[in-house]
């Protein structure tokens, strides 16, 4: 077999492509880099401006409002623990990184999902791309990300977006397609335009599913923080990474625990925002 078909030079092709992109689209990548850096830095500065106890109380109240007393208590104790262990500032950096990645995932993912839900052809193209994004090991695209976006928080954000966006897209498609056919039919029978159908019926009914997708994106973005720290992103991930490389088992556990606390708080809050009022039993 090797005789008649030489090894395909995929590796060479990718190298050439990355080189070409770095040279020709350098300006564009620089632009993206500075914008993302500004966003993350802005968020961190904003978070750090708020005194830690005020931040704790605000998040606790939010948890209480969308969830229950138990969750509020957990939030308060968890955040206090993070502060007490001395991981407050890294936690804020991680939060900024995750939030930026998630916001980008939503801004790109929801429209792509809506588009794909309307057009079969788009869906057919996008599905394998999403599979690729989710299963290609993150380290593989982390390296070209350094070429494009330098060392620091930005390649971390980009890697997080690539890994975290698929659930938002997938569940947006699913949510819209799951709107019962008879409701769609009724909407059409009264003379709705495609846009009215989408805005007044499909999106509101798909919202719980879309929110579940966003919730999954947040979780996946959080799971990327350690990997992001390898390309220089600051935050809790960097602390875990440092502890692991220096075999400081105790310290590593502390930083890891902080990530778990943040993950649970973000998960519970976003999970409950997704449910509408009637499902929460308010009405």
């Amino acid at each position: 077999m090797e005789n008649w078909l030489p090894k395909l030079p995929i590796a060479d092709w990718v190298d050439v492509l990355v080189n070409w992109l770095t040279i020709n689209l350098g300006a564009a990548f620089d632009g993206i880099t500075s914008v993302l850096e500004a966003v993350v830095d802005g968020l961190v500065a904003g978070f750090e401006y708020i005194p830690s106890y005020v931040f704790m109380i605000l998040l606790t109240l939010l948890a209480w409002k969308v969830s229950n007393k138990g969750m509020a208590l957990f939030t308060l104790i968890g955040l206090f623990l993070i502060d007490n262990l001395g991981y407050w500032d890294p936690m804020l950096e991680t939060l900024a990184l995750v939030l930026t990645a998630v916001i980008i995932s939503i801004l790109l993912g929801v429209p792509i999902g809506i588009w794909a839900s309307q057009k079969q052809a788009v869906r057919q193209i996008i599905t394998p791309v999403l599979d690729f994004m989710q299963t290609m090991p993150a380290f593989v695209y982390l390296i070209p990300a350094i070429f494009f976006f330098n060392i620091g928080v930005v390649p971390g954000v980009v890697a997080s977006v690539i890994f975290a966006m698929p659930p938002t897209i997938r569940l947006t498609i699913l949510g819209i397609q799951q709107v019962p056919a008879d409701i769609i039919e009724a909407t059409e029978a009264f003379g709705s335009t495609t846009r009215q159908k989408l805005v007044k019926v499909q999106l509101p009914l798909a919202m719980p599913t879309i929110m579940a997708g966003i919730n999954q994106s947040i979780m996946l973005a959080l799971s990327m923080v350690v990997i992001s720290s390898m390309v220089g992103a600051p935050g809790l991930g960097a602390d875990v990474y440092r502890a692991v490389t220096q075999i400081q088992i105790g310290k590593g556990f502390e930083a890891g625990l902080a990530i778990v606390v943040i993950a649970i708080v973000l998960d519970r809050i976003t999970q409950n925002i997704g449910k509408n009022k009637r499902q929460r039993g308010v009405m």
Partner: protein
Amino acid sequence: MSKIVVRNVTKVFGKPKTAMKLLKEGESKQEILKRTGATVGVNQASFEVKAGEIFVIMGLSGSGKSTLVRMLNRLIEPTAGEIYVDGEEIVKMNKEQLINLRRKKISMVFQKFALLPHRTVLENTEYGLEIQGIDKQARQDQAMNALKLVGLEGYEQQYPSQLSGGMQQRVGLARALANDADILLMDEAFSALDPLIRKDMQDELLDLQSTMKKTIVFITHDLDEALRIGDRIALMKDGVIVQVGTPEEILMNPSNDYVERFVEDVDLSKVLTAGHVMKRAESISIDKGPRVALQTMKELGISSIYVVDKKKTLLGAITASEAKDALERNEGLSSILHDNVSTVLPDTILTDLFEQVSTAVIPVAVVDEKKRLLGILVRGAVIGALAGRTEEWKLVQTTRTEVASGQSELPDMPLGSAQEVN
């Protein structure tokens, strides 16, 4: 004028060209499925719906009735054929015209209600108006009126999931009524409701219809429902319309074996009315004397007779023996008149007549709203009609026309009755 005209409308799912060719060659639905894999939903259906009537399309599941009704507002695109609404060919309409048609002219009620779960009853009802861009106050007023019509006042802030099935379908009906379209398509609208609620909804629909005069195309698989509410019924089988006619025509003159088998289990007592089975009424005018009355009864071989005035208004009845007494005392008919005779309206169904007919001493009189005598109910004829004897029924129908004409031309002719003496 016909509101909706449907000509040779066909729907084929999959491989339309080959299937259409085979259909034109007269191949059956099964044969086409076997040879091409295409399903024929509706096969060259033609019918017309008159303005203001309830036109029922009925058939078993899979007969193509839901497909057919969806082609009337093009929720399903016809493969071939023409559909005219108010003379306009809707199959050729572009997207914009079609949206306009759906907004202004045709609204629809669905079997599974298809309400928007995230909107309140009021918001659901105003949906059709909202998408037309009507301002909030106006559309809410219109929606509130529609809700009042269906008896849902006070529920406007509830969510569909808080309502029972019957009430949810009332919302569906209100939503369809809110945009004031002339044509209402109702796809198995009451089929998901339990029998008692279904009957209530049918009554209410008939009630609403008597004031609104919409053109209604009603789909059902339930023959009793079709007979109850339909002005005319189209019966479908395998995508083909096998018969179109009034409920009586379908019942009494089934066009083929299929229709006959379909209708053979129908409880005629719930379909036929007093008007269908009544006999010609024999009566005597009040200004005649007892001698004439006796003579008439003698000629006809009967022992009692109805008495009417010059306008054919029923006054009461007299018996032969009392007429004889009156003659001896030299008194008029009014002195011996029994004015408490039992009467029914012509549209009373037979079920509601049994008791009256079986206990009445003299045959029950059928009168219209102005108390004019139309006919009488003879026990034998009622039972005969129930036994489904077509000849008997046709006879009755002829008699009816005679009564009608006799009424105007010969208002006070003293006629004897062919009644069986009780």
